[in-house]
């Protein structure tokens, strides 16, 4: 899916929990997320903290989209 959309000429940032799968399916910009049932959240946090966590992850994704890459890159920090 990621790879196929990118093939049509759009940069894609893949936000996903299972980075090895993302590498396998051919994503070029990868942002690791929290957990499979809640990639962009964490039910253990209070709602405000959870939203802040999500905001940070999305900002990281935006940064990935603005970063030139030549090969599959995982944006960890």
């Amino acid at each position, binding site marked *: 899916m990621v790879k*196929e*959309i990118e093939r049509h000429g759009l940069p894609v940032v893949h936000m996903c929990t299972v980075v090895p799968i993302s590498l396998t399916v051919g*994503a070029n910009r990868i942002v690791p997320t929290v957990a499979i049932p809640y990639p962009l959240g964490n039910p253990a946090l209070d709602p405000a903290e959870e939203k802040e966590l999500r905001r940070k992850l*999305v900002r990281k994704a935006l940064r990935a989209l603005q970063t030139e*890459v030549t090969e*599959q890159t995982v944006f960890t920090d």
Partner: protein
Amino acid sequence: MSKFRIVHYINQFYAGIGGEDKADVQPEKRDGIVGPGMAFRGALADVAEIVGTVFCGDNYMNDHSEEACATVLEMIRSYQPDLVLVGPAFNAGRYGMACGMVAKMVDENLHIPVVGGIYEENPGADMYRRYAYFVPTTNAASGMRKAVPEMAAMVKKVLAGEEIRDGYLKKGLRQNYFAEERGSKRAVDMLLKKINGEEFVTEYPMPVFDRVEPQPAIKDITKARIALVSSGGPVPKGNPDHIESSSASKFGKYCLKDIDDFTPENGQTAHGGYDPVYANQDLDRVLPLDVVKEMVRDGEIGSLHDYWYATVGNGTAVASAKKFAAAIAEQLLADHVDGVILTST
């Protein structure tokens, strides 16, 4: 001996009905040859005859696939063919899909062989290659002159019952046969070749994954148009399109203009591959709509495409991914989207 009977399936364009403006025409059949079938006539003359041509508008075939396929199948059946010829579709996405759907219907219901022509990267090729001998073609209709003799040769081989090992896009099926030597001997032979640096052919290729070149980065995200896509199955509450929980046959497209935040009342997941409790409580955990909306408002993101797209996939490659991605990308490009955030579970 009487000649083999062939039915040819083509689209509205090759049938001479018209282009994109006629892509909604319903299935029709004509006795004998219409359009490109003429080119096949000479090549097949001594063994087979195109006894009928069935055509349909590409949009009609794709948008009403169930009825269209059923009608096309009955039209094909009415000619009692020995083989069905589809295309060539070259790189025309919707025509390729149509040819593929016809191949599948014929293979599963009439149990007669199908020969087609298609460009390897046409999404229809990946989706439906297992149902036909698809001869690889160039990506444009200018390759017709090359495609016809190759397809005709494949038709002849198939009708003659010859064992066909190449000249088509592999169907991706595993087929048993008895080898000359037993397995252990073949293993020793393969090992000797591997030791000696000679070429050897594995009998079971482990799955490999192709890559795509990274697209250039977005220069300034505050001016860019972003779209949200997810393979985690985020859908409006009630799953209005009835997206299946796994191996879904369709993707969802939903307007996000009126939603600023997901709640248990307006969103849920359709994905059957994980515990849905957390996503159903707050779908922002799968599709970060709340923060993205705020960031657009605050100017951190230029603008947002008005729809989100939802598929159900476990991350592993599924045959339909290409088809979905092609359809989604088309709509995103039409709306001048610059980049995509795709979330997965």
